Every structure is written in structure tokens, then in C-alpha cells.
């Protein structure tokens, strides 16, 4: 029951979800959609586990009087406020909506935009023509960079053309090759999970 039964359930669920792709009959498709809903619901339940772990970690910080425990209070305040707002009123213009629009979105969006700085520093630091491969990488990157902006057109008409050519020919060929390999790997791993060969999700590989 501890190891075999979950593997059995995993197998049954996997086979059904794989086979339904080939069976358009409504009796199967109705169950397919129902099970898909259930899987998503399961995910929603699982979400609480993570939150409990988060709360536990910061509770420990506060209890052990860690030097930066002040921020743990900030975290709890954000969590508690947002929960209180969310379970009372979620309509547009509510406090929940405002917290989302004016706290979560700007912080996340700004963290995302830090990449504009990092991409420049990474290019400066790493794009050195040390080897043939590195040279190709930096040359392709430079041409595409120039070709994507209007100033590239002004420098020479062939630059956007070259940028598009790199994107459409060598880039496409290599992406396609990687995609096939990755796809096969995904399928093989999916098969191994269904058959219980790959069971890291249960903990350990015993």
C-alpha cells in the first residue's frame, strides 16, 4: 500500500490520459475533461502545503530571534492582509484588486525589468571571442541585436536581412533539433513515470 498502490494509481491515470487522445468518443472525452478538472483541483489543494512551509520557516526565524526577523513580520503582514481582503471582496476596484495591481504587479514587474540591466552586464562580461563557438555566439547576438532596431536599417539595409536570415535558418535548424531531442526525452520520462521506473516524485529511487 505504501509503494505499490500509488504506482498503480499513477499507471492507471497515465494510461487513461494518454489513450484518450486517440479516442474521440464522448463517453471517454467527458471523463477526460472531468479528470483534468480534478487534477487542477488537486494542485489547488497542494498549494496550501507550500504556504504552511513558508509560514513555518518564518515562524522559526521569529522564534529564534534571527537578526532579520523584522522582514518575517512584513511577510506575515502581507499574507494576512491579502487573505483578509481576498476572502471578503475580490471584485475589480476592491482592496484585494488594489493590493494585486499596486503591490504585487509593480514589485514583480520591476524585478522582471532588472533583466534589462543584467542582460547588458552579462553580454559585456561573457561575450569574449575566446573560442570559435563563443565568437559565433557573440557575432550572431550582435547582428540580431542591430537588426531588430530601426537604427540597424539606417546603418545598412542588409543588417535586418542578415538578422532575419540568422533567425530563420541556423536558429530554426538548431531549435528544431533541440526540440525533437527534448520532446523524445519528455516522452521517455513520461513513460518511465507511468511504468514506475522513474519514481523520484515519491522520494528516493529505491
Amino acid at each position, binding site marked *: 500500500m505504501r509503494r505499490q498502490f500509488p*504506482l*498503480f494509481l*499513477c*499507471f492507471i491515470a497515465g494510461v*487513461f*490520459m*494518454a489513450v484518450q487522445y*486517440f479516442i474521440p468518443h464522448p463517453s471517454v472525452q*467527458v471523463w477526460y*475533461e472531468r479528470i483534468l*478538472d480534478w*487534477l487542477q483541483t488537486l494542485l*489547488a*489543494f*497542494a*498549494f*496550501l*502545503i*507550500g*504556504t504552511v512551509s513558508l509560514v513555518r520557516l518564518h515562524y522559526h526565524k521569529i522564534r529564534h530571534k534571527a537578526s532579520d526577523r523584522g*522582514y518575517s513580520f512584513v*511577510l506575515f503582514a*502581507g*499574507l494576512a492582509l*491579502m*487573505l483578509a481582503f*481576498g476572502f471578503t471582496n475580490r471584485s475589480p476596484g476592491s482592496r484585494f484588486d*488594489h493590493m*494585486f495591481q499596486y*503591490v504585487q504587479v*509593480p*514589485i*514583480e*514587474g*520591476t524585478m522582471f*525589468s*532588472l533583466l534589462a540591466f543584467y*542582460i547588458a552586464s552579462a553580454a559585456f562580461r561573457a561575450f569574449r571571442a575566446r573560442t570559435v*563557438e*563563443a565568437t*559565433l555566439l*557573440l557575432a*550572431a547576438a550582435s547582428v*540580431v*541585436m542591430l537588426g531588430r532596431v530601426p537604427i540597424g536599417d539606417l546603418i545598412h539595409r542588409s543588417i535586418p536581412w542578415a*538578422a532575419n536570415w540568422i533567425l530563420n*535558418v*541556423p536558429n530554426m*535548424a*538548431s531549435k*528544431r*533539433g*533541440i526540440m*525533437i531531442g527534448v*520532446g523524445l526525452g519528455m*516522452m521517455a520520462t*513520461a*513513460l518511465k513515470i*507511468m511504468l514506475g521506473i522513474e519514481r523520484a*516524485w515519491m522520494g528516493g529511487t529505491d
Partner: protein
Amino acid sequence: MQVTLIWATLAAILTLAVYSFLYKDNPFYKFAEHLVVGVSAAYYLVIYYYNFIDPNVISPIFKLEFGGAPIRILGMQWWMALIPGLLGLLLYARFFPKIGWVSRWALGIYVGGYSGLEIAPVMQARVLDQIRGGSLPLVVPHDPSTSFTNILLVVGLLGTLTYFFFSLKHKGVLGVLARIGIVYIMVGFGASFGYTVMSRISLLIGRVDFLRQVADSWIQWLAT
């Protein structure tokens, strides 16, 4: 003073707090970091509850009107809602070490289901369609440039696939092909990198534009 301007000002301050990280780690950044972790955890709890747990479990069982977004219930009997409900509760068994292993039942269905779901569409979109896309005519009559492009595409695909061939040492013909493959891969990575710069700067422009809007609103408010 408008309520939205207060909120927008808060957002602007938080934006600057995150940018201060570029100089170095500091209390403003730590504040924003911990705040967003807490707020987003609550946000997802609320959203998941109202989008999935409520319509799929709570409402059908207790015969309530759906509180969140309506979901299509396909001829579902109320007792069927017990299945995801019980499976979901099984996940929580892990909080009790003695029966923790029960949570694997739910996990097994989840992991197995999604693994199975993935197989056929992946075969279709990532393998079959790409092979089809790679099956190009090498000689296109009266069109040498397309012929040349097609040859380059086919050679690149063969090379890349060879690079990811693990069963034989990369020597001889395989070595040459794998070498061609890595050349294509690197050019492709360079292209992606260069292409992405624009996307990242767009985000920065978006944030700067937001700060400008808030500043404008303040100037307007002060002027009136």
C-alpha cells in the same frame, strides 16, 4: 487626493525599492521582497480556492451557487466532487508523519495523469511536426537560394540531432556532424540572446513610463 494616486505612489515607491537592489542589497529591497512573497502567497491561495476548490468541491457538495468563476460541470453528480476533495485532503496526510505515505496516492494520480496527458501532443508538436518541417526539398528547380537555404536547414538539423546522440563517441563522420551541430546551436543561442534584449528593455521602458505617469499625476495634483 484620489485614492488611486495614493496606491500608485505606493507602487512607485516599491518600484524604486526594487531598483535600489542594483546598487546593493538593502533594507528597502528586503522589505519589498518579503512583502511580495507574502502577498503573492495569499493571492494564489484566494485565486486557487475560488477557481478550483470552490466550484469543483465545495459548491457541488454543499449545493451552493458557484462563488467563483463558473466552471463547466459535465453531467457531474454531486458525489463526484468528493473524489477531488478526498484526494486533496489526502495530500495533507504528510503533516502527520505516521500516515504521510497516504499522500502518495493523490500525488501518484496527479503525476501519472499529467505524464500520460503529455505523451501524444508532445509526439505531435515537438517531434512529428518538426520532422515534417525538416523534410525540405533540397533541390528547388529555378530557385537556387531556396535550395541553398533548405540544404543549410537540413544539415543544421542533422548536426543538432547528432550532437544529442549519446550512444556513440563523436568521432569520424559523427564528430564532424556534431561539430556542425554545435556551431548551429551556438549561432541559435546568440540569435535568441540578441532577440531577447529588446524584450527586456521593453519591460524597463514600461516601468520608467509608469514612474513618469505617477510623477505627472503628482504635478497635476499639486498644480490644482
